[in-house]
């Protein structure tokens, strides 16, 4: 099942609907890299609320989404990391640099708007 990517204003919103296999994670990565140009997006929100785990593979793919988008002129915010997933990531010692993170979609969009104005308080 591929992840739906919606366009809202200058932003793309990728809302993951269920647990993803490795190939689905890579598909999302490639789709987003392409759509940033296609829609001339300034920012991406990836909603991972429904993701069951973020392991080394998923973390690397998500970081790549952020770095690729940045090279194409867009910022990426990850929203909806569940508390148990966050705990597992800390114990695993995974990190998500250079991604921005926010609690939910609303906060994520606010982060993108702040970043666009030049205030980069939330970013790395």
């Amino acid at each position, binding site marked *: 099942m591929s992840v739906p990517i919606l366009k809202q204003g200058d932003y793309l919103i990728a809302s993951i609907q269920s647990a993803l296999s*490795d190939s689905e994670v890579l598909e999302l990565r490639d789709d987003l890299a392409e759509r940033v140009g296609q829609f001339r997006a300034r920012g991406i929100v990836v909603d991972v609320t429904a993701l069951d785990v973020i392991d080394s593979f998923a973390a690397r793919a998500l970081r790549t989404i952020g770095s690729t988008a940045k090279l194409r002129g867009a910022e990426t915010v990850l929203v909806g990391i569940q508390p148990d997933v966050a705990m597992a990531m800390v114990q695993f010692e995974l990190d998500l640099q250079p991604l921005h993170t926010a609690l939910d979609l609303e906060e994520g969009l606010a982060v993108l708007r702040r970043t666009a104005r030049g205030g980069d308080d939330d970013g790395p």
Partner: protein
Amino acid sequence: MDHETCVEIESDADMVAARAAGRALAERLGFSRTDGTLIATAISEVARNILVHAGCGEILLHDVHERDRHGIVVVARDCGPGIQSVELALQDGWGSSGGLGLGLPGARRLMDEFTIESVPGDGTTVTMKKWRARDPLERLRREREQREQVWA
């Protein structure tokens, strides 16, 4: 041992199934949601290891019970080429297949026990355990049952 599940690992969709099976068994054994996620994440890493290094294998899940604790045991088995140096495979940053080599060391940090047996040419078996303390009431009840059995 009351519960036993085996998930064949042949494609990356099977990894998702193995994670779900691990989480379901952890929940049945009374582990917290967070522990369930730690276990599912570790399963994801060892399942990927099977796919990348051996192509196929299986993940066996079962429970284990001791006086003071309950445990979940995850055994990941493959018949691949084996790991040349288990010590190296457990170091961060080591990896032979284009990964970042974070998988196995990370999985080890998520679990309480972690062992790898590997025979070059004859496959690899990773065994991981996670424990949770047995509830004191649960233990007292069991001890009383045992006493009653002795008197009967």
